[in-house]
């Protein structure tokens, strides 16, 4: 595999192609003419050739708009296709996220790629296999029922000498076959009538195939977005105000006259950028350019108190009732004991290690964009709209970015690059600087959760009333930054921040769970604009609901695991996850808090259950709290994970480890600081994230359910982590923390309270 990749790379280089791409470049797509930059029409979902092609050497190219965000999902999708087609894994090549040759299967978001994109590709592969069998039946003069396939070779059952390879059947030629495809995007059903393999026949799905993208990532041979180089390419940097609705009253170009290599100061509407011959010139020019900005029309809340008051007092524009059962108020009036608590989640950063970057080449009425967008078709639409071009005149080519956890779902930088490229008539690569990214990336929304519960005289929870008040993803309602700066109008308030995690997995006699979306700084995007951040909404909601469960259990002096099991009675999968995690963690049954300990460091353990996108998780965190300094050390996290059928166990384990560690970071350390004029933490020193010395040990229990469809693994495992830590801290020191992050200062002040 590796040799093939290198020779392919050298081939591309030698052939004078503009872009040297190392990853996922299949050798055959070109035979189908799918490399035409601007086709008159998009590929059709009902053409088998739009999904799969087989080269003369028998290698298989799969075309998909689903992209790898550094999670290894393309390896898993390759396994699914190899399995269904009965070809060796290493013969599969994935062409991902190029709008010119893929079908829009929706953006890569929400841990839905395996769940939804997987079956789409599986069915396309099954349809291709069926077609190949039909062709083989003619060539081998044998009915399809008497044929078998192994490693891309069709043979007659019982007469293995009678055989023909996929390459000989169709290599280098089109299928020219129609398949069914109904619905659009993630909901599209592809070749639904074709029977796919039973899971009992799986040989490749379910194995830990090493990730195809990793080796070149360790050697510098992988091509990420910032590595795209186009001949004649210039370098751009953005110059942004404190809030986007300020206008540049004056741009003083003489202020950068001394900087060599500046090509142009680009100003269009309120957008300002500089284009230069080298990166360093562009950086210096962007830093030095004197721009006088108008006083912003929008003010941000000045501090957390104002923010919390805003969340509490502002009328929602959408409410999703997740559970509504029984009658709450009569139940509360019968309760022997009631509980009430409020929890806060701050704005947080996605914090891509590599800031946003894209290359745009706008020539006449056509534009080519190289971007790390999670949805290249969305980017195509957005760029086309801003430039006033038909969508078919814009081609977006995916190149992987740094891990983005939702940040590149609204991908701003392609528009910046497109504006600058159009202004200079040359390809322009725009790299956001660290401060651009920290200031202007759309933040994970702040949330305010309130919970009330009533317990009867026997200690049974008879009422559960849970409300989440969250900002939506404003970037889904507003146009992107550059669009807004050139005057495009916003389109709505934005999509609400998810729904799961308010305790709806538990069965209480009287229960209400509501997720409310609070309008946010509409219509002007500000540095506190928002978007989906890993396990959006669910993370905060579960932090609150699972902390609250613990508060009740503790008050009733019941072991927190036993307490949860009482109300999970009818749900097998979360129960199994909870039992699995407690077994692995060696959970000692007793109520929290732990018996008081001496010494400066207190130890505790906490548990939490999570559900997201139908994937079930349960976590146990073991912590040590330093009473003198307030520092929490998460020593170990054990996590049980059930996402149905597991496609690649090691790939999944890798994802879970990452989710857990990122979850610890977001719980203990992360909060966007802001004041009325903007974001205050513009670097890693002021927005610290977890480092090696603080990363916990992670133990994982994978629950495989081969009889189920595979579900997502990209983000559900972060969901129970914050509450498990909160509960462990309570177990250790008997103090309840209800506001993220759990900084040493907050711990100390809670200990004093």
């Amino acid at each position: 595999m590796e040799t093939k990749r290198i020779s392919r790379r050298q081939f591309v280089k030698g052939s004078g192609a503009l872009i040297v791409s190392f990853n996922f470049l299949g050798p055959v797509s070109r035979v189908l003419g799918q490399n035409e930059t601007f086709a008159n029409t998009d590929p059709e979902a009902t053409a088998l050739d739009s999904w799969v092609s087989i080269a003369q050497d028998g290698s298989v190219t799969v075309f998909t708009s689903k992209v790898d965000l550094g999670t290894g999902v393309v390896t898993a999708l390759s396994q699914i296709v190899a399995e269904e087609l009965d070809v060796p894994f290493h013969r599969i090549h994935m062409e991902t996220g190029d709008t010119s040759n893929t079908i829009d299967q929706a953006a890569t978001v929400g841990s839905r790629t395996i769940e939804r994109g997987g079956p789409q590709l599986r069915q396309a592969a099954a349809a291709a296999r069926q077609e190949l069998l039909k062709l083989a039946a003619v060539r081998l003069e044998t009915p399809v029922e008497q044929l078998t396939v192994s490693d891309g070779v069709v043979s007659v059952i019982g007469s293995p000498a009678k055989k023909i390879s996929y390459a000989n059947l169709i290599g280098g030629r089109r299928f020219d076959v129609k398949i069914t495809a109904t619905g659009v995007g993630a909901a599209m059903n592809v070749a639904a009538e074709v029977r796919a393999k039973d899971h009992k026949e799986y040989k490749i799905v379910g194995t830990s195939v090493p990730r195809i993208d990793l080796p070149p990532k360790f050697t510098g041979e992988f091509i990420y977005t910032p590595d795209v180089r186009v001949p004649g390419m210039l370098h751009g940097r953005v110059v942004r105000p404190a809030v986007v609705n300020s206008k540049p009253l004056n741009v003083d170009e003489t202020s950068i006259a001394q900087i060599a290599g500046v090509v142009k100061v680009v100003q269009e509407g309120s957008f300002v950028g500089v284009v230069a011959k080298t990166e360093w010139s562009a950086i210096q020019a962007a830093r030095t350019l004197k721009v006088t900005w108008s006083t912003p029309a929008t003010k941000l809340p000045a501090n957390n108190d104002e923010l919390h008051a805003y969340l509490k007092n502002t009328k929602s524009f959408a409410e999703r009732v997740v559970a509504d059962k029984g009658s709450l108020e009569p139940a509360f009036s019968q309760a022997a004991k009631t509980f009430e608590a409020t929890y806060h989640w701050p704005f947080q950063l996605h914090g891509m290690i590599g800031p946003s970057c894209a290359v745009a080449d706008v020539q006449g009425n056509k534009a080519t964009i190289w971007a790390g967008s999670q949805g290249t078709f969305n980017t195509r639409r957005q760029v086309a709209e801003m430039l006033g071009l038909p969508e078919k005149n814009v081609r977006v080519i995916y190149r992987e970015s740094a891990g983005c956890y939702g940040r590149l779902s609204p991908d701003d930088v392609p528009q910046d690059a497109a504006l600058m490229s159009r202004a200079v008539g040359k390809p322009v690569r725009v790299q956001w600087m660290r401060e651009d990214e920290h200031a202007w990336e759309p933040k994970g929304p702040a949330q305010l959760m309130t919970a009330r519960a009533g317990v009867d005289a026997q200690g049974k929870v008879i009422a559960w009333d849970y409300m989440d008040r969250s900002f939506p993803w404003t970037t889904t309602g507003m146009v992107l930054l550059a669009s807004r700066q050139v005057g495009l109008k916003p389109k709505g308030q934005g999509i609400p921040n998810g729904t799961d995690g308010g305790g709806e997995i538990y069965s209480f006699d009287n229960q209400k769970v509501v997720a409310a979306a609070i309008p946010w700084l509409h219509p002007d995007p500000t540095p506190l604009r928002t978007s989906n951040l890993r396990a959006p909404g669910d993370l905060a909601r579960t932090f609150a609901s699972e902390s609250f469960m613990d508060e009740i259990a503790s008050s009733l002096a019941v072991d927190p695991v036993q307490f949860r099991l009482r109300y999970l009675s009818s749900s097998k999968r979360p129960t199994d996850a909870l039992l699995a995690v407690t077994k692995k963690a060696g959970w000692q049954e007793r109520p929290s808090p732990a018996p008081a300990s001496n010494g400066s460091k207190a130890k505790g353990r906490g548990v939490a259950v999570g559900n997201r996108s139908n994937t079930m998780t349960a976590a146990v965190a073991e912590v040590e709290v330093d009473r003198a300094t307030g520092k929490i050390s998460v020593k170990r996290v054990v996590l049980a994970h059930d996402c149905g059928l597991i496609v690649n166990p090691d790939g999944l384990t890798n994802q879970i480890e990452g989710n857990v560690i990122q979850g610890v970071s977001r719980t203990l350390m992360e909060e966007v600081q802001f004041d009325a004029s903007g974001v205050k933490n513009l670097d890693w020193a002021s927005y610290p994230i977890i480092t090696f010395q603080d990363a916990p040990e992670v133990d994982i229990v994978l629950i495989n359910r081969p009889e189920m469809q595979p579900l997502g693994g990209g983000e559900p495992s972060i969901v129970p982590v914050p509450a498990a830590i909160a509960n462990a801290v309570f177990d250790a020191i008997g103090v309840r923390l209800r506001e993220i992050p759990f900084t040493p200062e907050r711990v100390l002040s809670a200990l004093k309270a």
Partner: protein
Amino acid sequence: MARISLTVNGKSHVVDTDPSTPLLYVLRDDLELNGPRFGCGLSQCGACTVILDDKSVRSCGLPVSAVGSRKITTLEGLGSVARPHRLQKAFIEEQAAQCGFCMNGMIMTAKVLLDKNPAPTDVDIKRALNGNLCRCGSHVRVVRAIKRAASMKA
């Protein structure tokens, strides 16, 4: 502009550039080496790490004119997919990355560590890498990969 001589991965280069340009941009844009990556430009994250002689250095903050006669090694200088260095081999075997964007810094920092301390403990490794940020949470695997590399023959 000035003509500056550099030795990178054993080869001599002369670049014509503004001498204040940070080394990172010269390596990436003039020499087309993609191993060192732009992460912050503030010497905070480690993604741009290269080795100068035998020390790891943040190339985003070092003017190219300050390199002098020191030999520069980038990730490409360690090995390739076809001929990986033992660290690269160990990282592959441990599948020690997710997005991989920070891995240049992890591997280059680990190289300097192993050169000085051929048998590091977990504590040594975590201390050496503590200034290298990883957002995907590959920390556990990175530590394992470095231990694995240490156990391989150099």
